[in-house]
């Protein structure tokens, strides 16, 4: 036989011990590549784009031609690919694993939606082209409106708000306009906001010029009705209520809340951040809502993209539809048109939210998501989201402490009671999850629960995935209770970085790179 003596060994050598402590010369560790800042790897003369020659011309820059060269780092295309791919690998993502951030709704983002958003009739049309040339884009907006109104039962929709908080502001400005038209803006000053509300709610009401009056939660995590009855009065402009609320609970008394506010002459603003738990199971119109924003990036799965862009259309009741901002869509015989100017409007728009018509790219993705599911699928989405959350609630309750008794909606809320006297805080527990390969849940929110941990699995997790997650959290909880505090207080040990010094970042802010 012919022997090949130049081959390489094919079985591993005995492992170096302790391999984990090996310090590398490059700083990278296997697939975990180190990547410096763009401003250290790039240089001004490098370019990854080929540009045509500049034609002869007589410049018309007045005296404003730039005198100093621009200072910017550049990269060739291969260098840019490597820089950003390496950076991407330092991120957690839904496509990597369960992302249980309560109230953020991190569900699967279908790639069909990405593909469709890039069709030229949506992606490559200008907001101010003649309207006769964008009928397809307008038809898409019209279809989206139809779906949103059908799901919520509401009478109109304002599409232009660019994110949830922008939508809140839109809805509250409609309410403000309605109150102003009644001549009551001077006396209706108060907006009731539950203490459990997301911080954007009071910030929005304040931005509209209202005074905030907080509502405490009762022992079941819902609005304290006795306090509400006491606080309601002729000076109340609105209540801003999230439903299901930020504790993951349905506000059982919602109809009575709506009636109380309406009888007092105020409006019911619903924060629709958690619509994903109830669509197809109830319509917000039937709950007495006057205005509600819908986070397309939560309920309808447009990608979060590391913090945006979002989209926050607002559905409105008959009482408020007249005040929707420009631009808005109208049907004119066979064709669709945008009313862009308040002067042309037959209604009473409160103003304009932004330069153009809203987040078209998000509209396409959201509509594709809705049509894929259909009326049967959307109902199933709510059911599975709630089922998944309750399954985790049931399983995790073996070792962790639920904040409230009973079932939940789409997210399960725990407090830090189970960590009492362990020396482990909610933060430590969350950071230990990172070592286990999970993104932490939402922590310390809502504020009404001590050391809150809010877990939202969404409907796109399989039972197997939920079981693995539950097994891991139960094991962590047991470890914390059995005195293994060090693996928590030091965590994460296995992430690209250890805990970061936020005090230093805030005391002496370094907000940009500068040549030293």
């Amino acid at each position, binding site marked *: 036989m012919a022997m090949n003596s130049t081959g390489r060994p094919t079985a591993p050598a005995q492992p170096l011990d302790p391999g984990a402590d090996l310090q590398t010369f490059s700083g990278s560790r296997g697939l975990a590549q180190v990547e410096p800042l763009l401003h250290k790897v790039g240089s001004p003369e490098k370019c990854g784009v080929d540009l045509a020659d500049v034609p002869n011309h007589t410049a018309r820059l007045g005296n404003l031609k730039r005198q100093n060269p621009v200072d910017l780092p550049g990269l060739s295309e291969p260098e840019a690919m490597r820089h950003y791919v390496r950076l991407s690998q330092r991120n957690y993502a839904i*496509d990597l694993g369960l992302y249980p951030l309560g109230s953020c709704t991190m569900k699967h983002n279908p790639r069909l939606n990405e593909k469709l958003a890039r069709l030229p009739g949506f992606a490559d049309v200008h907001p101010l082209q003649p309207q006769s040339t964008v009928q397809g884009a307008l038809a898409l907006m019209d279809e989206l409106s139809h779906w949103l109104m059908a799901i919520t039962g509401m009478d109109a929709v304002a599409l232009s708000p660019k994110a949830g908080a922008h939508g809140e502001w839109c809805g509250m400005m409609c309410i403000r306009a309605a109150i102003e038209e009644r001549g009551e803006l001077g006396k209706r000053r108060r907006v009731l906001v539950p203490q459990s509300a997301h911080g954007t709610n009071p910030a929005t009401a304040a931005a509209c010029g209202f005074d905030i009056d907080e509502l405490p939660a009762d022992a079941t995590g819902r609005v304290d009705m006795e306090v509400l009855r006491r606080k309601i009065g002729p000076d109340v402009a609105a209540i801003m209520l999230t439903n299901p609320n930020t504790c993951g609970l349905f506000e059982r008394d919602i109809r009575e809340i709506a009636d109380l506010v309406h009888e007092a002459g105020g409006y019911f603003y619903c924060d629709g951040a958690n619509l994903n738990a109830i669509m197809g199971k109830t319509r917000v119109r039937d709950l007495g809502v006057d205005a509600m924003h819908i986070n397309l990036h939560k309920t309808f799965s447009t990608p979060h993209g*590391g913090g945006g862009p979002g989209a926050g259309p607002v559905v409105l009741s008959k009482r408020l539809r007249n005040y929707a901002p420009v631009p808005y869509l109208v049907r004119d015989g066979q064709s669709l048109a945008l009313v862009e100017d308040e002067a042309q409007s037959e209604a009473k728009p409160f103003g304009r939210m932004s330069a*153009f018509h809203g987040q078209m790219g998000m509209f396409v993705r959201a509509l594709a998501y809705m049509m894929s599911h259909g009326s049967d699928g959307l109902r199933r989405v709510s059911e599975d989201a709630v089922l998944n959350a309750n399954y985790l609630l049931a399983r995790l309750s073996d070792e962790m402490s639920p904040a409230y008794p009973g079932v939940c909606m789409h997210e399960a809320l725990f407090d830090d009671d189970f960590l009492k006297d362990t020396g482990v805080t909610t933060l430590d527990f969350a950071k230990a999850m990172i070592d286990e390969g999970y993104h932490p849940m939402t922590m310390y929110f809502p504020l009404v629960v001590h050391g809150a941990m809010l877990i939202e699995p969404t409907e796109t997790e399989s039972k197997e995935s939920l079981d693995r997650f539950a097994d891991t959290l139960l094991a962590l909880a047991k470890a914390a209770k059995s005195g293994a505090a060090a693996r928590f207080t030091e965590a994460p040990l296995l992430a690209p970085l250890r805990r970061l010094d936020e005090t230093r970042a805030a005391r002496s802010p370094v907000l940009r790179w500068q040549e030293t």
Partner: protein
Amino acid sequence: MRYLPLNEDDRAAMLDRIGVSGIDALFADIPQEARLDGLIDGLPTHASEMDVERHFTALSKQSLSAGDVPFFCGGGAYRHFVPASVDHLIQRSEFLTAYTPYQPEIAQGTLQTLFEFQTQVAQITGMGVANASMYDGSTATAEAVRMAARITRRHKCILAPGLHPHYSKTVCTAVEGETVHIQAMDPAMGEDRTIAQELDDDTACIVVQNPNVFGELVDLAPLADAAHAVGALLIAVTTEVVSLGLIQNPGEMGADIVAAEGQSIGNGLSFGGPYVGLLACRDDRKFIRQAPGRFAGQTVDATGKTGYVLTLSTREKHIRREKATSNICTNSGLCTLAFTIHLSLLGACGFAKLAELNHARACVLADRLDALSGVEVLNTSFFNEFTVRLNGDAAKIVETLAKKDVLGGIPAARLFGGGPFDDLLLISVTETNTDDDFDALVTALQEAL
């Protein structure tokens, strides 16, 4: 349903573990009279991937897309060429499907790119610092005005005659609930310098767009001096950031805050959104404290390694609630990333050359149009967009051109309403316009006039 992993066995087992008899037990808190027992009225049931794609493709074809025709629309949104690598990179799962980087140990990808973005924005605007982006240029402008009012503790804001009217309206709407008073000057071309006459000791800021909505370039330096002389701030607005590669940047001209639309870099037209607002300001603690939105900041981890975190968050709504600087929560994450990648592919040389190319091609077209009878170029200076007076109603002419498959620009009346603007047309030229496009526009205009 392809996006839902549970099957009936899973569901039954899970309900059993929860200890309820059926799924409706989990929805028992919904008031009886508000429960929806059947399916939602008026909607079809689920559809396959292929069917959904077919529907959207048909809708897409009902619009005339910019890439298919000679195209000259600007007015705050510009069609530039975006390299294929940009779109590929922003679709990487780790960027696309990540949340806001609240857990910095496993979000350094997003955080470092935000830090790079902030640095690039500061560099091209000539400002000390920049935030991690706003929704778009118009909302950035509105936030800049509110910021200036907080910094100066004054109440009046003057909007220049050359500010994009949609920006102007956005600002007016944004401060409705506040004690800020907006004085919006009547739109006019070449009148921006008169803004200095309106300053007084309650003026928080003046807002000046450059290039302005008519495309005319504005020397901000004397306006900055005039504003500073009475203790007011200059907010410089830019809707076409590519211009910063060729003209003096707002920092050099004395701006205190810059609000800009960053769509031109890395982001398509997308019928108006999503875009990416830029907000930059002086590197002054007083300014930074009052700035809206998020900041990424550099720090170290427990072992001394450099890393990045979201910082100065006490300004934000999570903590300040009703006392927050702004109610904004989301930024434009992925659009920010596209901006950063495209700008890093350009680099200083590419950015400057791209700007010069835009200007040069605009000059070529302006000269050709000016030679036509019935067309007069009104600008004395411009970057890549200019205003022409037509011998006729610009909106009607644009419709006529559209029927010939030429998207010839934006009638000024679309932005300003009718009246004195009926015969004005805004024409924008970028590196994407070919000589053939110019020929088509010239021919079509000659026929229409």
